[in-house]
């Protein structure tokens, strides 16, 4: 590989010229995140979210009802199999609401993860024809899942009313747990979307991965089944803190988030930051490889 710092291409030239100057150079090993440029392209970000939401339920009969039906029927199946047949403990709350409280953030996570992982390949026609910061694509794919989450939340509050459960005073913490779920989905999605460009195996492995992840997260069972000394390790899966946090803030089960949450947040942060830099490095060849 020829040295990119050709004598003709003195990077110092960048200084002192107008702001709209763009320097086009060969791929670099280390690419800055350029969050400012990302911010300048916020309009296309919101348009892509809008497009995803607008198109998602076109030509369906049930429309946005699907956002409710999927977690709702999963909850019913889980309640029959795990709650009623297997007699799974549920921290003293009715199993259906125990499951639904977990399924709600879980569906948000899976939806965002799947959408962002497939986003680059799915938007091939944009990638190969027009330039804008590539981070916008997985970011908007991740964010488009939030609306479904909001719709499905309505059912949760209906169920809480039905079971006469009042949210705890820690309910204000919920947005933080939602943010943790989204950050995790986005971080993993960054890795997988960039890998997916080179290796389409990602698309095949993803449903399997999310299924395994479902069982590694306290959704059908309470985390109180996990021995205490393993909780911090268990917390390396950020979704376990998200699910436990949801139950703790809404149903008052389990204990206050502690070391497990710290482990989760650190893990999510590490995946997110590494994902951002990995994506930035790989995006230089997206248009050639996709």
């Amino acid at each position, binding site marked *: 590989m020829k040295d990119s710092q050709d004598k*003709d*291409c003195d990077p110092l030239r960048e200084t002192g010229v107008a702001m709209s100057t763009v320097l086009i150079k060969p791929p670099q090993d280390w690419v800055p995140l350029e969050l400012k440029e990302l911010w300048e392209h916020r309009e296309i970000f919101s348009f892509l979210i809008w497009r995803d939401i607008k198109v998602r339920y076109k030509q369906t009969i049930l429309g946005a009802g699907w956002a409710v039906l999927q977690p709702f029927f999963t909850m019913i199946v889980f309640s029959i199999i795990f709650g009623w047949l297997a007699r799974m403990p549920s921290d003293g709350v009715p199993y259906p609401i125990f499951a639904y409280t977990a399924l709600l953030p879980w569906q948000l996570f899976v939806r965002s993860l799947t959408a962002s992982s497939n986003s680059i390949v799915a938007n091939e026609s944009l990638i190969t024809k027009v330039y804008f910061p590539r981070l916008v694509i997985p970011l908007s794919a991740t964010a488009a899942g939030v609306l479904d989450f909001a719709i499905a939340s309505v059912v949760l509050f209906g169920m809480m009313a039905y079971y006469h459960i009042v949210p705890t005073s820690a309910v204000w913490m919920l947005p933080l747990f939602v943010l943790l779920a989204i950050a995790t989905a986005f971080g993993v999605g960054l890795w997988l979307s960039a890998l997916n460009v080179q290796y389409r195996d990602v698309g095949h492995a993803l449903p399997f991965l999310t299924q395994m992840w479902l069982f590694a997260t306290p959704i059908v069972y309470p985390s109180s089944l996990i021995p205490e000394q393993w909780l911090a390790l268990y917390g390396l899966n950020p979704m376990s803190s998200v699910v436990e946090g949801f139950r703790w803030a809404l149903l008052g089960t389990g204990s206050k988030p502690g070391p497990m949450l710290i482990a989760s947040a650190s893990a999510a942060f590490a995946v997110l930051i590494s994902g951002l830099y990995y994506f930035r490095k790989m995006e230089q060849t997206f248009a050639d490889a996709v």
Partner: protein
Amino acid sequence: MGDIAIRVENLGKRYRLGQRLRYRTFRDAVSGVLSAPFRGVHSYLSGQRPSENAQKSDDFIWALKEVSFDVKHGEAIGIIGRNGAGKSTLLKILSRITKPSEGCAEIHGRVGSLLEVGTGFHPELTGRENIYLNGAVLGIKKWEIGRKFDGIVAFAELDKFIDTPVKHYSTGMYMRLAFAVAAHLESEILLVDEVLAVGDAAFQKKCMGKMREVGREGRTVVFVSHNMGAIAELCDRAVLLDQGRQIADGDVAGTLGAYARLSGLNAPQAQYSPDSSLPSSIISLKLCNQDGVETCAFDIGEGITVSILYRVATRLRGLQLTVTVSRNMVDVIHSFDTDDLTEIPDRDPGLYRVDYTIPGMFLKSGIYSIRVGAGTPYKLFQDFESALRFEIEERSINTHMKGYRRGRPGHVISPGVWKTTKLE
């Protein structure tokens, strides 16, 4: 450097062979990892440095190599070359879609690139929604689109259908809408790749008008096209690429001339060793223009002559030579040298030359191949498929508004005559 809009220095783009042809899977990567140490050992034993081994030059193809030029603010420059010359790769690098492998480029000013029209269009969304979406994709701000919205709809001539999902549009409507948004891109620097090739003749005229307007506004334009007439009309300067290399850079007429000579590099003639077992055999074929110069590149208005040299060994009854001219696998012309005769003559032994001339303004622009054969009505002696190839270019005529432009239906330029009579 204040007046320079684009500076391209030593730009090169290398693709690994087959990189775009297949997906890589984990299996490939895993087997690559497993065999890598052995390759290292192997290259060590054979005395090669691994880096040399890994980058054997035949594993790569340079789509672009050592290309350098400057474009001043307000200049309109055309990029020409045959298919695969690297034109689109160059435009993709300047648009920041792909990265160069070496060299660099600087762009001073806001860039708008149109590598295709309708990028990001979604079939389920309405025309109105797609205008906003496409605008955002092209980098036009929402308020800007809002301000230009009526102009875009009027330009596309779609007022009635603007709230219909575009999946119900005809191809023409779709392309008109797409171009209309693109035409309202107001960047200082415009990179355009053949997007004019859309819509019907009337809309073409409008698009050309818009492009001329862009040129007059003093914006910088880099324009890639196959249509030499359009390049000649819109650009002040042209760069010629061939197999990734920059062959010429200068005024349009000079560069177009270089392009014509370049296309002539394909062999305009073919030799065959005589076959003594046959009663007649073809010795050579040759393509000439109307001045008698051997060439493979013709202007659309120019006559094309196929010369066939053949030897007859024994007196032959009913010998016929045939020429078939085809384009994109479609046979356009099939002709016998005896077509004008009422009776097929006998040929005495000897050396013969026959010239077949196709007049100018008959074949549309494009690449043609010639098949030549010899035989009698009962037996085919020789048949040379794709014996020669030639290209017809739109050098002297801008075909954008013509019915015989390359992309339009029809195989030849119509010999029909139009006459309009005003009746009332």
